[in-house]
């Protein structure tokens, strides 16, 4: 049974799919938090909107970078399968 599980590539691909889903979940949560904080601060201080927007884009790019690392790993797993 264990041998069957270890040898089945389909399970590896399923793992990649679950990983991609988790990556999307994490990135969505992170970027959502950044977006909500940025909106709040723009509403409080509309004149600082430009600066907040730039900082928001940079912060979401950093999160996106980590998320894309995960996506690349998942893609590599699924190509192996």
């Amino acid at each position: 049974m264990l041998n069957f599980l270890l040898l089945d590539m389909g399970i590896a691909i399923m793992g990649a799919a679950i990983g991609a889903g988790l990556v999307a979940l994490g990135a969505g949560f992170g970027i959502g938090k950044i977006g909500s904080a940025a909106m709040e601060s723009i509403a409080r201080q509309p004149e600082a909107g430009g600066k907040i927007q730039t900082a928001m884009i940079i912060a979401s790019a950093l999160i996106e970078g980590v998320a894309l690392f995960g996506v690349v790993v998942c893609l590599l797993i699924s190509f192996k399968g």
Partner: protein
Amino acid sequence: MKTKLKRAHNIFKITILLSGLVFLFAGFNTVKGAEDSEELFNPGEMITHHIADAHVWHLWDGAFGTIPLPVILYSDDRGIEMFSSGNFYDSHHHLVEYNGYQIEHGHIVPLDSGRQIIDFSITKNVASMFISVFLMFWIFLSVKRGYVRNVGKAPTGIQSFFEPIIIFIRDEVAKPNIGPKYEKFLPYLLSIFFFIWFNNMMGLLPGAANVTGNIAITATLAVFTFLITQFSGNKNYWKHIFNTPGVPWWLKVPLPIMPVVELIGVFTKPFSLMIRLFANITAGHIIILSLFSLIFIFQSIMVGPLSVAFAIFMNFLELFVALLQAFIFTILSAMYFGTAVEDHHEEAEVS
């Protein structure tokens, strides 16, 4: 008011016509797909074919749709060899062997597996890069001519489109992130911004190459940023890496934990630049192509308009992503340069 209405009416008519055309094409493709149903449509294969580099530029099936590109090979025994990649295809577009070489999964490999070759070919990506470099030279030399011609006057022509963008990079990206020494880095930042932007946009054209979605190209760009950061790093920058101020001594002395972490950070920064650009552009292409694949997977005319509508929406999103990724790459490069040239300040306070 009336002309406005008339114009709106015309636009409406054109839209109807265009969507009709799209419908027709979708239908045509469905019929074609149904005819050779024994040959199953493989979306993964189609998508890889579209996002990967190739030795020919494939625009459409049939006559004159495939442009052969030059192949340049170097091997120790034969020296430099140059020939057209069209030699690898027979009249029915099937792969054939030529001169002791064959194309295997898009790569040229020698039939005799003992031989080593280095491939310098002008591939699809290289050809596309040549086009974009030519385009950029043409545009920016004419912008430059504008500045020579109207000194102290308002910009004219294409100059007035690019001036706000150049000033934006200077005032919003370079100045606040690098500080007073920004001028040295501005040419690089502008070049990299426009290079990535132009290539991202050109990659969205139908039949175009996926230049910025190729990891070798994004790696080269990231290596440029890495080298410039390291070579312009001052004493303060290296001190921050090897003897980080404001950190307890036991993190540094017996076991150099902090220096190792900081040193890894030096390499992960350009690495994330590379992956970010590559994965964003490639993911965009994969999504658009997958939406088109839906038509062939379901083999139904009903899916056509829906998937075309989604693909058009994704295309517009990708236009934004093309600009955003160029901007992110530039601003992060500027921030890394900023940390490298930053002067000594407020450390006494921190420690």
